């Protein structure tokens, strides 16, 4: 039986190849889309009791420095620290040399990011050196920075170049993407620019996660009528808000993915129906020889399942390879994509979808083939 299924599958090689390719393509796109969605929705390293405060209008608008003290007075807020995105160019503009660089306050940064690990010696050394910077372990290892090394980050958004001295590393073992960042003294940048008082975001640490709604509400109300109204949200919501810039990606990708899979299902079903119809007479011969109706049904069904599973393995396999390569290429440019992977869950779903395509596309032709009377089948020409 197995031999017959395989031979039948290879009988019309072009048809099989095209069907296999279409199933593979659908599951390749599915794997890619799912890995992409999983990556951008990943909230790795976010803390439930951290709140981000930014300008209500846009991230490109700054907040006054004075907000730090006022935010610190809110109930349940245990620490406040500012973060300013610097951007800039390190070495060159190649994607692999891109990583997040933030102007920060060494005195409060680790009060808020208490899940980060830094030795007291490194922290003291960094605090003592106005031009010092710290880097995540992965980033430091990538560039082989040793304490005392000097680097220059050329400004692009801001009109200054940062000459920085490496003070040491910090770690965040639970979220490797967080170890690809660099922090320097925001004060150093401010002074170099004549103290414009630029702060992009304030990060608050709360005493408990359940107080997040109260604090975000209070923070927004506090500055509601000011020149710089704020939006306060959890760190996770802040991370996900970047997606809004892309529109409703999940819905869009989901709709496209579903449309592709349904189209492929119809294409495969049509192909399997054609294949089964071509063999109507052979099916009747098999039954004349004594094959049971169920055995004949299985022949067609297993052939179609084989197409579905092979298509899934090929498509998801190629998708996983591409995702892995893409993640490597992107990890320094967009750390969020550096975590992109075709997880076992995604691959399992792809395999299940392949099986479903095989099963659904084969079930009607299989039962049609075995359901026809033997005499009618034998009469069929071709």
């Amino acid at each position, binding site marked *: 039986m197995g031999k017959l299924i395989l031979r039948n599958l290879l009988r019309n090689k072009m048809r099989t190849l095209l069907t296999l390719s279409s199933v593979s393509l659908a599951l390749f796109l599915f794997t890619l889309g799912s890995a992409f969605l999983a990556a951008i929705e990943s909230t790795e390293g976010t803390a439930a009791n951290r709140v981000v405060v930014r300008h209500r209008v846009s991230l490109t608008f700054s907040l006054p420095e004075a907000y730090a003290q006022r935010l610190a007075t809110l109930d349940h807020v245990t620490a406040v620290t500012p973060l300013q995105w610097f951007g800039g160019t390190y070495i060159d503009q190649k994607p692999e040399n891109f990583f997040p660089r933030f102007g920060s306050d060494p005195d409060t940064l680790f009060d808020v990011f208490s899940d980060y690990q830094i030795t007291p010696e490194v922290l003291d050394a960094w605090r003592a050196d106005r031009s010092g910077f710290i880097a995540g372990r992965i980033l430091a290892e990538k560039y082989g920075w040793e304490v005392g090394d000097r680097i220059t980050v050329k400004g692009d958004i801001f009109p200054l170049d940062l000459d920085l001295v490496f003070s040491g590393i910090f770690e965040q073992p639970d979220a490797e993407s967080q170890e690809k960042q660099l922090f320097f003294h925001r004060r150093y940048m401010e002074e170099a620019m004549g103290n414009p008082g630029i702060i992009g975001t304030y990060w608050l640490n709360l005493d408990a996660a359940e107080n997040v709604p109260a604090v975000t509400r209070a923070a927004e109300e506090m500055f509601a009528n000011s020149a710089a109204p704020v939006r306060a949200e959890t760190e996770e919501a802040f991370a996900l808000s970047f997606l809004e810039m892309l529109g409703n990606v999940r819905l869009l990708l989901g709709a496209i993915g579903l449309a592709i899979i349904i189209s492929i299902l119809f294409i495969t079903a049509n192909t399997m129906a054609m294949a089964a119809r071509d063999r109507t007479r052979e099916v009747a011969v098999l039954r*004349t020889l*004594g094959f049971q109706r169920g055995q004949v049904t299985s022949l067609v069904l297993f052939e179609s399942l084989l197409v579905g599973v092979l298509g899934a393995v090929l498509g998801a396999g190629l998708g996983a390879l591409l995702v892995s390569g893409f993640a490597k290429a992107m990890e320094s440019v967009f750390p969020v994509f550096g975590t992109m992977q075709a997880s076992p869950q995604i691959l399992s779903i792809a395999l299940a979808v392949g099986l479903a395509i095989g099963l659904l596309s084969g079930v009607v032709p299989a039962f049609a083939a075995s359901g026809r009377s033997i005499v009618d089948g034998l009469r069929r020409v071709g």
Partner: protein
Amino acid sequence: MSEPHSVVQVRNVRKSYRRDSFNIEVLKGIDLEIQHGEYVALMGPSGSGKSTLLNLLAGIDQPTGGSLSVAGQDVASLGESDLARWRHRHIGFIFQFYNLLPVLTAFENVELPLTLTRLPKAARRKKVQTALEVVGLADRMTHYPRQLSGGQEQRVAIARAIVTDPTLLLADEPTGDLDAESAAEVLDLLDQLNRDFEKAIIMVTHDPQAAGRAGRLVRLHKGQLVNDGD
């Protein structure tokens, strides 16, 4: 009580089909008895019901009325699964257009019915080789149907029909698609199977020469037997 050597007993068998609102009566009360080792030719004009009768005897179609016993079994009383098993055990069917599976070699085509048994691979192999030797194609085992002539294909089909050692061989115009030389070879082979292996054979044919090889000629006309003699 049936005769001990009776392979086929057909009593008042009728068969009709419905086409739209019409009832078409194909067989109108057939009575026929065929003994073990008998070689019967079934002749008649197109539409006389020859193939329908053959299909009923093979258990691939059901009569509308009457009784039909083949190899001691009331065929109409069997359910679908039992009927398939019975067919596998007792019937060897030879088609006009051979109906070999094009994706399988001659060996694999002949082996096909044996895959439904629990015979070990070696035993299956031996039986297939024997069947192919009987039809004179032991040297064509690895050939695919497209690599064989029409006559050779039909001989492989005969090997497939006899490999399970069935009680009854049914041949539906086995020479209808062959040239004279190949047809003669196939008829020789059927003679041999009847003579040497005492196989009961019922052959539907339009060819008087082919019918002449049989021990008995049965004629059908408009669904009724018109002659049952030598």
